[in-house]
């Protein structure tokens, strides 16, 4: 074969391979796309006719976290309804998150929704945004600090109150010794939850695990249950860790029961079939939704949701008795 023929042949192979790849990718994304479409259909009935706005949602989430995915969905739903273009970004590092706020100011957004879980790093830039006339809302973290920034509203739960409610719940369920599984050592919100449980319940021990390593978390919880046989209740502080804890209890041959914070598809199933007794739901969808909607209301009508006070989105308990009402939303990834 002459060279150009071989070349042409090779080119044909490459082209068809590329085509096949495009088709395959197209096939994959079309199923995702269909879901997006269906979701969009729900909200597309009433889209605001107010001028198009650009809002930045800036969180401290690491990538690939289910909880923050639900927050983002809530924000997207509100953005769609309000004719807003939503720009989502996140960075677990405080300084980097602060810089994202600066980027939003620079790109002249019409509003910023931000988490203040790393308050000292992020607040200076939030104040700058407010000074530049950009309305800011705070969500999820920053209950103690949000007012000093001049933000128009706060949407989240009081972690200590949520913990205390959990403590009461555990008392009511007849627990004797509780293990509070902390999946991020030194996270203020998580510590506050365990402290809240301790305030109301008393006999609580914390256990640090690495939330980004599920098999390792499982082994660590198993070994703790082997070490301390008096533990009869485990509380996980997010859905993934709790489901791992269920497995760990089985491994350790422990009869300990399990409670949780946060919802997910799998968690709804576990609550329904009784492997998890309860889940404290802070309604992340609502946090994202309200944080964006509040900006729109503030811009278009001068409203402030909460009237200058924090709006609490939790704690609400999801249990066997009310799982029916929640399950379908959890399965769709919005609760």
């Amino acid at each position, binding site marked *: 074969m002459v060279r150009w023929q071989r070349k042409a042949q090779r080119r044909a192979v490459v082209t068809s391979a590329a085509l096949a790849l495009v088709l395959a990718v197209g096939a994959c994304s079309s199923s995702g796309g269909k879901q997006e479409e269906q979701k969009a259909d729900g909200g597309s009935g009433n889209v605001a006719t107010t001028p198009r706005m650009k809002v930045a949602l800036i969180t401290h989430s690491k*990538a690939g*976290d289910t909880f923050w995915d639900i927050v983002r969905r809530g924000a997207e739903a509100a953005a769609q309804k309000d004719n807003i273009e939503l720009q989502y970004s996140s960075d677990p590092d405080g300084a980097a998150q602060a810089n994202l706020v600066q980027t939003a100011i620079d790109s002249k957004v019409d509003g910023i929704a931000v988490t203040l879980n790393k308050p000292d790093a992020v607040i200076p830039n939030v104040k700058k945004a407010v000074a530049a006339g950009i309305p800011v809302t705070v969500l999820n973290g920053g209950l103690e600090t949000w007012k000093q920034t001049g933000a128009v509203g706060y949407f989240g739960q009081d972690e200590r109150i949520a913990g205390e409610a959990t403590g009461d719940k555990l008392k009511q369920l007849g627990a004797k010794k509780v293990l509070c599984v902390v999946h991020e050592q030194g996270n203020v919100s998580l510590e506050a939850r365990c402290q809240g449980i301790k305030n109301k319940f008393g006999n609580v021990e914390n256990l640090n695990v690495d939330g980004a390593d599920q098999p*390792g978390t499982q082994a*660590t919880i198993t070994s703790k249950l082997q*070490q301390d046989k008096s533990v009869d209740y485990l509380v996980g502080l997010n859905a993934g860790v709790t489901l791992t804890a269920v497995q760990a209890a089985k491994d350790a041959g422990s009869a300990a029961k399990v409670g949780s914070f946060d919802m997910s598809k799998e968690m709804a199933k576990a609550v329904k079939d009784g492997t998890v007794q309860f889940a404290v739901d802070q309604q992340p969808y609502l946090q994202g939704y309200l944080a964006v909607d509040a900006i729109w209301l503030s811009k278009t009508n001068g409203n402030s949701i909460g009237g200058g006070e924090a709006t609490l989105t939790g704690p609400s308990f999801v249990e066997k008795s009310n799982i029916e009402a929640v399950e379908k939303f959890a399965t769709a990834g919005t609760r």
Partner: protein
Amino acid sequence: MASTIATPADADDRVSARSVGARLLSRPEIGSLVGAAVILVFFLVTAEPFRDINNTGTILYQASLIGVMAVPVSLLMIGGEFDLSAGVAVTTGGLTAGIFAYQFSVNVWVGMAVALVFALAVGLFNGWLLMRTGLPSFLVTLGTFFILQGLNVAVTRLTSGAVASNSISDMDGFGSAKAVFASEFKLGGVTIKIIIVWWIVFVAVAAWVLMRTKIGNWIFAVGGDAASARAVGVPVKKVKIGLFMTVGFFAWFTGMQLLFVQNGVVQSGEGVGKEFLYIIAAVVGGCLLTGGYGSVVGGAVGALIFGMVQLGVVYAGWNPDWFKAFLGAMLLLATIVNLVVKNKADAR
């Protein structure tokens, strides 16, 4: 290696017979073995549940989670390179299998096969780009690390609409695959997860390849001095690419364990930071960061030390605030014991 430069001596001491003790002490893993023994005794004394034989299975499981990947990572380090993408590659392996099987509604084993091909391709890409460009492996695999990390989250969101893959636990082939990768059995009252068995098999095979075959010699040669290795006819390129593909294979294997132990769901953000644990296990086990020296058994002992310390702190019931500090101190202790023993051995 320093030992290749023989000082001039009257008698040729390179061929003189050495005692069994001296030969044993000059093995790379001996220091870590002593370190492991020290840690073991320490926790046997301080942590009461550590003495319960039934808990051995839990400790070995923890060790195997790092240990399986420490096998190829040790080999790669002996070969003079390291791989920063190894941690997220594990997550990629699990995700690829899960997502492919779910999206195309095919047998789980088909998804696994696709994931294996992809994992090997990632290794091939790392090795090929490294040899092609001559860039340090630090840069090449750092790039792959970010690419995979981004792909994991983006493709998962694109296909499932969420950041965790859809569960494949009710699909054809899940049961049989789970039996292979994530089942468990009882051995005299101790629950043994099957990955521990696989780990032991992998260590044995890899140690044999490294110590008893031509390929093993090649690995030492390319890690010690790639230029001279090339000069004496060692296929440097093939060996290094092969080593990266070995990492790819093991990342796939560990990814399968991740997938099947979690009921067919993989969270897309996982795995970041695990690459350092694999490297730590290899280094604690006596592999040099500069290549050309080390052992597979050492890497396994390094993983064992890590597992023992991690769970030992829990078994001892210490205040959890101190957890990471204890962990770091223990690892340093193990490494220093390792160093002291090695120096003693070299001085003989």
